[in-house]
């Protein structure tokens, strides 16, 4: 009835294009420096998705451009195409195969999520306070000593951040840690991270909070545990009373037993 398609050649072209795109895309470090135990896991997930996406994209491009190359109407050709209404096997295939791909992606993501949010017993807790347009930090393990605009944490220890917002929603993001969490007025939100590289980073507010949003930053220092202890012990100021109020009054949004620890 109608000609056959060069299926094998099209598949080979798709695979070749997938390999080229994936090779280029995976070789680039999109997310920037990795400085927490979560970062490589998230970046690996991203790379796996880049490969799968490259395949889907290559398939669409090969299908599209082959059709445009092969089935362009000649100038002046007013005839119609073949009256093909569908192909059940093909339709089942392009329903099932994407379903399998996305369910694989969901399962993999779930595993990564569980990994990066696994709580460890010896974690250090830091209270984070945000208000228009400043960050401040307290150390409950050290009698709630308090510092504005800068915090230090020990390397290779899990840190639990307990976040409180005083006015509007802010969001806590350290790109090198791949961790982000909104600070919400009235509730305590939490995030877990294990920094594994010493250095100085920037904390960025990523939830629109007013005209000062773009400049709402703080300094993050990851250092050895000994240096960190010394730094914290050097802090003299206690957490101011209004901020202590939110430590006491904020409620946990997650019902007991459902909180995986991180969220």
């Amino acid at each position, binding site marked *: 009835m109608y000609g056959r398609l060069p299926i094998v050649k099209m598949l080979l072209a798709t695979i070749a294009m997938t390999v080229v795109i994936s090779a280029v895309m995976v070789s680039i470090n999109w997310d920037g420096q990795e400085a927490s135990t979560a970062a490589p896991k998230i970046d690996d997930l991203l790379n796996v998705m880049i490969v799968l*996406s490259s395949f889907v994209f290559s398939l669409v491009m090969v299908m599209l451009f082959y059709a445009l190359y092969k089935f362009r109407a000649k100038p002046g050709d007013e005839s119609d195409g073949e*009256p093909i209404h569908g192909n059940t096997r093909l*339709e089942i295939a392009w329903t099932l195969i994407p379903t399998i791909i996305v369910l694989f992606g969901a399962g993999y993501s*779930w595993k990564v999520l569980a990994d990066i949010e696994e709580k460890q017993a010896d974690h250090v807790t830091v209270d984070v306070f945000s208000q228009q347009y400043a960050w401040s930090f307290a150390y409950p393990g050290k009698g709630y000593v308090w510092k504005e605009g800068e915090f230090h944490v020990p390397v290779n220890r899990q840190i639990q951040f307990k976040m409180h917002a005083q006015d509007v929603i802010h969001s806590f993001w350290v*790109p090198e840690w791949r*961790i982000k969490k909104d600070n919400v007025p009235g509730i305590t939100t939490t995030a877990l991270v294990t920094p594994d590289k010493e250095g100085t980073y920037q904390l960025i507010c990523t939830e629109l909070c007013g005209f000062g949003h773009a400049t709402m930053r703080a300094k993050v220092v990851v250092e050895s545990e000994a240096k960190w202890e010394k730094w914290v012990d050097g802090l003299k100021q206690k957490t101011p009373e209004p901020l202590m109020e939110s430590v006491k009054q904020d409620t946990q949004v997650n019902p007991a037993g459902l909180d995986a620890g991180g969220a």
Partner: protein
Amino acid sequence: MVAAIKRPGWTRAILGAIAFGAFGFGLVVALRAISGLPIYQTEQTGYPHIIVPAITAPLGFLAGLGCFDYWLRWAVGAPTIPDDHSQHGAKTWKDYFHFNTDHKVIGVQYVCTTFFFFFVGGLMAMLIRAELAQPGTQIVDAATYNSLFSTHAVLMIFVFVIPVFAGLANYVLPLMIGAPDMAFPRLNALSFWMLPLAGLLFIGSFLCPGGAFDAGWTGYAPLSTGAPLGQSFFNLGVQFAGASSIATALNFLVTIITMRAPGMTFWRMPLLVWANLSTSLLVVAATPFIAGVQFMVLFDRALHTNFFDFAAGGDVISYQHIFWFYSHPAVYIMILPGFGIISEVISTHARKPIFGYRLMALALIGIVVLSYSVWAHHMFVAGMFSWLRVPMMITTLLIAVPTGIKIFSWLGTLYFGKIHTYSTAMLFALAFIVTFTIGGISGVMLGMVPIDIHVSDTYFIVAHIHFVLFGGSVFTIFAGVYHWFPKMTGRMYDERLGRVHFWGTLVGTWGTFVPMHWVGMDGMPRRVADYAEQFGEWNLLISVFAFILGAVQLVFLYNMVTSWRYGPRAEANPWRANSIEWQVSSPPPIFNFDEIPRVVGGPYEFGIPGAKHAIMTSEGAEVPAAEPSVVGTGS
């Protein structure tokens, strides 16, 4: 003068707006005086003497324009004026500026009005990109910048993308299903006239003390509940745009369900009709949620109801749940009608039946059902209860499946066809497949919680939404406008200028939005007027492409305006399509059909000898299309 006041029209509309506005103002002043309160309350979240007139004056305008005349007479038992069809159809260009019940006039009114807002919103985008071309603040200060991106998004979403689809479908859909008009023509006219009011409220907020609303189009509480007066204009504008959407969706549902021509079963409907059926199902059920949540914010602001005030026991995160319960379905409201347009364009220009027509229709319904169960993927880092994340991730990823079915079926439609690419509509349709695939891929990545944690609220999000909304929705809008331009205006557009517009838009879109993915992943947050030096070069490049993208839209505008005025006359069916709207003259006769057509087959039976979609006269004989009885073009 008296006659002008009694007759519905602009004089009465302006007087109505003034009178109703004065009434609202007087009511506030009087009630406050009686209660012994200071007459004017000018806390930034207050201003009742401005908010109440901002509600009543638009209603007065609508009443003056004649939107309620027929219903009010009927409601109070006065004799109704026999309908002489004087408000139906356009005889001169002036009729497009009046209350009109003809779905074709309303369709043109919609498309022109929404494109006006497209260009206003586009100018704001140009200002935004000018500011972002270099790190630091140069052109606007941070507060103005926040107002600019908020109004840009709101204009584009609420008074461009959503209603322009309603406008295109308004024109085309009744013709497609062989109906003489929409089911409720007066409601249809009211739906349209609420739209410019919504747009004016959004733009008018720039005049408020404290500037235009600046809490983003998402208007998250408590930033929005404490914001200056402009935010209240956003809350109110959404009500008018939302009411317009809901009324139109009801109209489409009733029209599609009850007014199809004899023989047009559900499985013989063109996919554009399926698409608008699905969209309308989303609008009627989801849009009330954003109307509700914006009222809650307005009440929090003006009446201190404390829905979202944490200090008074309110729940901050509940705003986001209600907002996204609308606003995620809303992204499908903004793409499903486009899917319908692409199906029509690709099938016609590939001279092929749609591949897997029934699965295409079912995929639309699948998207409708799934889209109600994915809203919290916007909230993976919002601090909501953590257990909801994984189920929402799975539904979010699954929605890629029906979307993928549509992409592959369009590609399948091309195979063994005779693909014509002379039409700009087809170029946009083919480019849409590619750009939307990219947007879909980044959407799947965003659906994965661990990746989303990193890129949420960064430029990756900005890149994603512009790939799906500009590379997706707006490409389908351009495809639709070019495709039905001959039908709507009776003129052909200039394909050469169309191709300039197409290639400029394609290059501009990719150049602008592809690098945004990179800077986002690398650490640039969204909604900032100022950013770290390291992103300077990429942002300059993005801005340059954005200006190309903006400039090339002027080519489109020029093409549309001059072609409408001077273009060569269009024949009834320039694309040799099968569906019914192409079987009547361009533009169609005032009441669409002399005789209701009979549908005898599917809409895409290309290549089948003797196959027909519809028979236009009762004899079944070929009769030349009637001369257009109406000049609907202003020419």
